[in-house]
């Protein structure tokens, strides 16, 4: 009886831990249905691709801004390989009006985003994925009926200076997936703005 109690307790503890931590490499990612800046709902399955570069980003964060032009370029490269970029803004617009849905449209227009820019208003997708900051990337790969998480982290190794980038983590991950080789660097960390959770 005691053992069962311990087992149940451990399970609860473990599940709360997993919830808190979000996805790890190899986990199956959930699809979503979020409103795009053009007002239409977008889900991953509706995009029919080999996989996806899901990027949690926003308008106000200087680190996210540093990557706006790079995301446009990245999408050209990865879309051609079957892995389109899907950007998601999960920030609470009440605390950060710059990150409102209206302002997402403005920014996407200014920066000529060539990828969907979705509004995760309930913040449920950021929570489920375990996104903590902007930008925060999850590369998903379609394997059978599942979407497997194959890379988590930064876009490249130099936020401040795009010209000084040495390692393109996301591109490398996709190249490895395409050639069915193991991904050399599956997880990276970068400084970023914390996701602004609703209070």
């Amino acid at each position, binding site marked *: 009886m005691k053992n069962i109690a311990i087992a149940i307790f451990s399970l609860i503890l473990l599940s709360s831990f997993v919830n808190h931590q979000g996805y790890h490499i190899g986990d199956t990612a959930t699809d979503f249905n979020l409103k795009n800046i053009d007002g239409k709902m977008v889900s991953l399955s509706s995009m029919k691709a080999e996989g996806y570069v899901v990027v949690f980003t926003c308008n106000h964060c200087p680190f996210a801004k540093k990557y706006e032009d790079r995301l446009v370029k990245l999408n050209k490269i990865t879309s051609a390989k079957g892995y389109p970029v899907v950007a998601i803004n999960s920030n609470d617009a009440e605390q950060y009006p710059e990150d409102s849905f209206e302002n997402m449209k403005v920014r996407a227009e200014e920066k000529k985003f060539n990828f969907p820019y979705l509004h995760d208003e309930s913040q449920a997708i950021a929570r489920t994925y375990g996104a903590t900051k902007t930008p925060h990337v999850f590369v998903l790969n379609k394997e059978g009926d599942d979407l497997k998480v194959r890379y988590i982290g930064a876009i490249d190794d130099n936020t401040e200076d795009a010209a000084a980038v040495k390692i393109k983590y996301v591109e490398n991950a996709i190249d490895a997936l395409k050639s069915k080789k193991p991904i050399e660097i599956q997880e990276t960390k*970068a*400084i970023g703005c914390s996701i602004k959770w609703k209070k």
Partner: protein
Amino acid sequence: MKICFSLLIVFFTLQVDAQKIIDFDQFIERTHQQNDTLYVVNFWATWCKPCIAEIPAFEKLNSELKSSPVKIILLSLDFKSQSSNVEAFINKNGIQSETALLSAGNPNSWIDKIDESWSGAIPATVYYRNSEKLEFHEGDYSEETLKNSINKLTQ
């Protein structure tokens, strides 16, 4: 005249301190010392609203704990090319705590060395004493929670 000159020197020293740029080794050297001082290192940036919001709490405790073996260091993660923003912020707000700007290259090489649980989001705060990490906290503090956390480690 002499006093004026000394003041000028003090002033310049403070100015230099305010915009000091350090690398990761210098960060370790500064915070890992063989003494009983508790080093409270707060990672922040001038553009980070929740960071700016908690700085008054650090400043208040910095002045309250002046005679205690506690050293508060506000370590900016602003881009190196924008270090003048940090200097302007420090001067404008009359920041008294020790400050520096950390320019340590690819964060993927050093974030885990601060703490493996750190996602890289700021604000974040780490505590060291006697070259040992005592605690790490990702997220912001209220004045009360910061005080409690320092008190717990100095009792």
